[in-house]
Each structure stands twice: as structure tokens, then as C-alpha cells.
């Protein structure tokens, strides 16, 4: 077993160094799909989460329970729902985006959005509780206070993004269902691992897994640095 892992590691290095075009495309697509999903989720989720974190909203606790539940939405389920929606037999079939990267982005956004909203709410709310009175006492308007609290919540919001990205890049259930694992078009690292495993090419599968982890590490390296900057000003 250890032999497989070591061979997998060597295979991974070989792939990287020889610029195997198929794998590089898979790598790029993984980043592209998950990255776009996180970006979209952030653009929607951070404002929504901030609003929920700052304002007393009726039914807040129920909403949070709902959000927490959806944070754990099984990717296959999300994939299935999106598939049925985008299917030519389904309501949005005319858009013809099933079995394309666009469908994969949509499915992953559904998975990532609750995470970003939920963690943003938690982060903003805790800052709000700590800071709000003190800032108002110093003479801030509600709008100024909201803005400051948002800025102070930056580390927590970055955590939300990190968590969301981790979820997206690692999942396979949603993208394989709505994307179809089409070679050179909708194949990403996780679905490629599924393929190689099915064919019993374990070394290749492990190599792809190592590449996936390395990619994840590099991205999180950057995100972590960004977070540290926000903390230590």
C-alpha cells in the first residue's frame, strides 16, 4: 500500500513536470469551476450574511437552523436537483447548460452558498455583540457602525471563504452528475479520480489526489496569508 502511495507521488511529479496537457486542463477546470462557485457564493452570501448578522431579523433562529442544515447538503442531492432542473426534460432545459461547466458551477454554488452565509453571520454577529455598543458610544451612526463591524469581521469572512472553497474543490457528487465527467470538457480532479479508480489505475488516482491536495494547499496558503494581514494590522 505504501508502495502505491510512493508510486502515486512519483506519478504526480511526472505529470506536473512533463506538462501533461490532459491533466493540466483538468486542474484548470477544477480551479475554474470551484473558484467561480466560491466567487459567486461570496458576492451573494457575504452581503446577505452581513445583513443577517447586523439586523434583528424575525425568525432569525429558525433561519440559522435552516442555513446550518443546508451547510451539510449532500452534494449528490444538490447534483440531482440541479440535474432535474437543467435537464432538457426539465423546466430550465431550454438553457441547454446541462453537461457543461456552467451547470457544475451552479451546483457547487448551491453547496457553498449556505456555508458562506452561515459563517459570515456567525462572524459578524460575534463582532457586533462585542463592538456595537462601544462604537455607538463613541459617536458612530448605525451605518458607520455596520461598516466598521464588517471590516473587523474580515478574518471570519475569510474563514467562510476558505471553508466554502474546501467544500467545492473536494466534492464529486454534484459535478459528476450535472457535468457528466466528459473528457476535456467537464472532467475535474475529483471526477478524474473516480474514473481512474474505476479502471483500477490506482497510482494515477493517487497521483491526481496528491495534485488536488497540493492545489488546495497552495490556495489556502494564499487565503491564510490574506487572513493574517487582516488580523495583524
Amino acid at each position, binding site marked *: 500500500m505504501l508502495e502505491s502511495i510512493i508510486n502515486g507521488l512519483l506519478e504526480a511529479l511526472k505529470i506536473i513536470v512533463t506538462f501533461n496537457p490532459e491533466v493540466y486542463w483538468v486542474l484548470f477546470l477544477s480551479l475554474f469551476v470551484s473558484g467561480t462557485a466560491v466567487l459567486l457564493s461570496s458576492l451573494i452570501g457575504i452581503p446577505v450574511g452581513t445583513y443577517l448578522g447586523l439586523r434583528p431579523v424575525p425568525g432569525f433562529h429558525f433561519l440559522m437552523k435552516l442555513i446550518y442544515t443546508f451547510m451539510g447538503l449532500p452534494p449528490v442531492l444538490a447534483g440531482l436537483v440541479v440535474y432535474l432542473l437543467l435537464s432538457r426534460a426539465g423546466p430550465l432545459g431550454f438553457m441547454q447548460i446541462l453537461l457543461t461547466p456552467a451547470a457544475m458551477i451552479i451546483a457547487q454554488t448551491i453547496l457553498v452558498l449556505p456555508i458562506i452565509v452561515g459563517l459570515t453571520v456567525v462572524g459578524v454577529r460575534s463582532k457586533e455583540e462585542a463592538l456595537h*455598543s*462601544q462604537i*455607538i458610544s*463613541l*459617536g458612530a*451612526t448605525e451605518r458607520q457602525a455596520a461598516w466598521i463591524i464588517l471590516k*473587523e469581521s474580515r478574518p471570519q469572512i475569510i474563514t467562510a471563504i476558505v471553508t466554502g472553497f474546501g467544500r467545492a474543490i473536494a466534492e464529486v457528487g454534484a459535478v459528476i452528475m450535472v457535468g457528466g465527467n466528459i473528457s476535456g470538457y467537464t472532467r475535474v480532479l475529483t471526477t478524474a479520480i473516480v474514473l481512474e479508480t474505476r479502471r483500477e489505475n490506482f497510482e494515477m488516482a493517487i497521483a491526481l489526489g496528491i495534485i488536488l491536495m497540493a492545489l488546495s494547499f497552495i490556495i489556502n496558503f494564499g487565503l491564510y496569508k490574506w487572513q493574517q494581514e*487582516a488580523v495583524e*494590522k
Partner: protein
Amino acid sequence: MTQSLIELRNVKHYYNGRLVLNVPYLDIFSNKITILLGPNASGKSTLLRLINMLEQPGEGNIYFKDVDIIRLSREKRLELQRQMVMVFQRPVLLNATLFENVAFGLHLRGMDSKIIEKRVEEVLKFMKLDHLADRSATRLSGGEVQLAAIARGLAVNPELLILDEPMNNLDPRHVKLLEQTVLDISRERDMSIIIVTHQIPQVSRMADEVVLLEEGEVIESGPAEEIFNNPQKEFTREFIGGII
């Protein structure tokens, strides 16, 4: 003549249906150092929050410089809010340098950055914190954070400065420094100061006026000398007793 800065009339306040503050009549006077005393959970923090306009009393009226602070337009409320500052028991600084934190209140008021710079430098020097100006707030000790919060409040030059147990995290050196600072401020500027503290010896050194709370009610209030030398209530005697 001693002028009333703050007047409470028939004020009652409730938390979860429970009556936590019952003050039929209380005056806080301008340009005086008023010390607010009382055992834990006697309603001191509640009283401060009401005075600082962070909450509105369930019943009654509160006046700041003869203005009813309860029914106010947003602008008028902001105007009054910016004339008073509370330094909280557990102050929270922003993720920034000490300098930026102290400048914060001034930025809120939209002041010119040159003026801000001057004012902050002044305050930091006054509080003997200038050597820490560029230090990140996350790297300040507990005592330094406390002093920084006080500097932050001072910087906006309020008419009313409220200090909620400011001595908590301070070592004796700093306590002495703070006491001196408070006395200097009171003398040099037109600032009214309300301090909540448990340290009775300090009270005797600093107080102009004393208000003693117990279970949400004012047991006794008046000039410090009278309270110390001639306490009217048994409770007061017991509470203060033994120091003078």
C-alpha cells in the same frame, strides 16, 4: 451654582419583566467627578447604559442639559451622543494600531486628518502612551488596552466621560497615573466625569459627588464629604465604613 448635567425623573427599567432600576430622582452635576458605588448587580451598569443613551428606560424621563433624550430626532440624538463617551468595563479595540484606535472617534466625526493627528498625539502624550502609538492593538497588555480605551474616549473631548470600572486591569503604577489623569482632566477641561469603581480609597481621593446604589435603587447621594463624614443610611455606613 452647581448645574445639573443629567436629570433622572421617575425612571424605571425592566429586564425580562423584572424591575432592575428604580430611580425616582437623581441629578448628576456638571464639571464634577461623580463616583457611582454599589455592590454587584445593583444596577450600576444599567444606569450607565441609560445615561449613555444605549438603551431607553421602560418608564420615566432622562434629561441631558435639559433636553429629553428619549424622544429625539436621529440628528439630535447623534449630536447628543457625540457629547458623551463611555469607556466600557471590558473595552474592545479595533484591529489597528493604537494610534488608529485613538483616532477612531475623530474619524467618525469626519474631522480633518491633520487635526486628528495633532489631537491623537496630544492625548497619547497626556496618557503616557505615545511610545506605543504604532503598536498593533492585538499586542497590547490588558492594562494598556484599558488606558488606550480611555485615550480613545478622551480624544473626542466629550462633555461627559463615563468610566466603568477603569482600574480593573491596571497595575498600581497605572492606577496612580489614571487617578492623576482624571483629576487633571477635571481641573483643566470642562468635562464631567462619572466613574464606577469598587476601590473605596480612591473614591475618597477623587470624588466630588457620590451615588450609592443597591438593588436598583439610590440609597444615598450627595457631596462626597457629606457621604463619608455623615452617612444617613445604615447601608451607606456599612458599605463605605472603615476607610475614612
